């Protein structure tokens, strides 16, 4: 742990990495959706309110924002908000399932500066991907990537959530990315949102985690991870990155109705710090909320205190523990020392995420809902 990382634990004057989910509306119903998205929330921020959020980010010198959802491109003012941000000096990286990127839209995106795009793909073939993201979603994502390539967008990102079923396809994902001139980004599956019910079947096994660690060590410089696999550092060689839970310290989430949570994976009242509509706006939430102040205080290693690997893994991911019913000062459920599995056997009740925006009935995946 470097001195710099120690300082980060105390929090920064402004976040480095903000995820901003513009809408809970989504045409897909992915089984692992971290925000249980599907239906639009009527309390969603208006265009004007979204602009004010951008103004605050600019004033706080937040240099870029990660826009997501739901499917953010569903919002009619999507381009208005993105252009307002990028012309304010707040760069945008947005995540999309690619449904709304046709040839013309790809051309438009290719002309924009300070803009990066992340296409979600959870299988290197249609069968593996569609089992998670819905029928037809693989073809949709591939079509969007072709449009971006043909439009000369440049290097976009392909974003993969690593699961038990796609972890053997990492080399294939890399090949797909290379073929499109794209960059591969792989992140950890958390038991958040709808994944609170699917994580136990989808998360990688212990053996698979060891393979992943080796794969990351040999591909580290070419593949992005959002620092999400730092719990694997307990296996020995450290992966590049900050190696700490950034929740409320360097990271936070603004959800579609303006609620501010400690990170994108803890949409639960326990980690709700405030709302951008509150007096003082986002800045006051970030700087003075009780929730974030607590997260920046000293954290106990708890049951992990006597483990020789604690310095390496820092106890892992807070969200992963919380949504599997484990104490926050104990091992990560995917602790590579095996302590997580033992802990899970006697885990407490599993908290439910705060909002379920899933569509009320099972819809045909890959099509727009008519509800």
């Amino acid at each position, binding site marked *: 742990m470097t*001195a*710099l990382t120690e*300082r980060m634990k*105390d929090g*920064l*004057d*402004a976040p*480095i*990495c903000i995820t901003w989910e513009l809408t809970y509306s989504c045409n897909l119903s992915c089984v692992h959706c971290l925000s249980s998205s599907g239906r639009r929330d009527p309390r969603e921020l208006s265009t004007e309110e979204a602009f004010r959020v951008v103004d605050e980010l600019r004033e706080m*010198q937040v*240099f*870029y924002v*990660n826009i997501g959802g739901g499917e953010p491109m569903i919002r009619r003012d999507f381009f208005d908000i993105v252009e307002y941000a990028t012309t304010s*000096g707040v*760069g945008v*990286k947005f995540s999309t399932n690619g449904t709304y990127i046709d040839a013309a839209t790809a051309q438009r995106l290719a002309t924009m*500066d*300070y*803009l*990066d795009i992340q296409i979600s793909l959870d299988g290197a073939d249609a069968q593996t991907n569609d089992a998670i993201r819905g029928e037809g979603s693989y073809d949709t994502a591939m079509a969007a990537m072709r449009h971006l390539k043909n439009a000369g*967008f*440049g*290097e976009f*990102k392909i974003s993969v959530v690593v699961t038990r079923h796609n972890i053997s396809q990492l080399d294939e994902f890399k090949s797909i990315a290379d073929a499109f001139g794209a*960059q591969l*980004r792989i992140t950890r599956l958390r038991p958040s949102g709808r994944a609170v019910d699917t994580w136990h079947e989808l998360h990688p096994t212990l053996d698979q985690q060891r393979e992943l660690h080796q794969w990351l060590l040999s591909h580290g410089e070419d*593949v*992005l*991870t*959002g*620092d999400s696999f730092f719990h694997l550092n307990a296996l020995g060689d450290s992966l*590049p*990155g*900050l190696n700490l839970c950034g929740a409320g310290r360097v990271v936070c989430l603004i959800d579609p109705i303006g609620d501010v949570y400690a990170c994108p994976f803890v949409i639960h009242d326990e980690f709700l710090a405030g709302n951008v509509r509150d007096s003082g706006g986002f800045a006051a939430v970030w700087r003075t909320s009780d929730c974030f102040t607590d997260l920046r205080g000293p954290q106990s290693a708890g049951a992990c205190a006597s483990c020789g690997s604690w310095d390496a893994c820092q106890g892992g991911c807070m969200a992963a523990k919380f949504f599997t019913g484990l104490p926050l000062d104990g091992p990560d459920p995917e602790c590579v020392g095996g302590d997580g599995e033992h802990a899970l056997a006697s885990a407490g009740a599993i908290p439910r995420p705060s909002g379920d925006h899933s569509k009320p009935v099972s819809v045909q995946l890959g099509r727009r809902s008519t509800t």
Partner: protein
Amino acid sequence: MSKLSQKNSNSSKKFPSTVCAACTDSCSDVLNSPLKLHPSVALRPEPFGALAYHYDNRRLIFLKHPSIVDVVKDLDQYPDLQSALCAHGIEERHWDAYDKAICSLIESDVVVPQ
């Protein structure tokens, strides 16, 4: 402004440090070089020093000490780094450390020739 390049990815992958792995010729005789902060770099003050963001390549860089931030901010006001260090009251015995730090900032394109 150029579109995002391959280097942009560093913003999400990791937070590059200011460690200079292998200083090249671009770092020679830094003390006597006329330097300035890159016009596309923004500095955000933080308790540990500052966060530098390069709008051209989308890299985030940490300046890990407040005094290096002070020096970098107005480098363009001085004919060379040495003069800037003198003006900021940095003792000569510490210059080597500043030489290295500025060298790494040149490597990451945060500091450029005037």
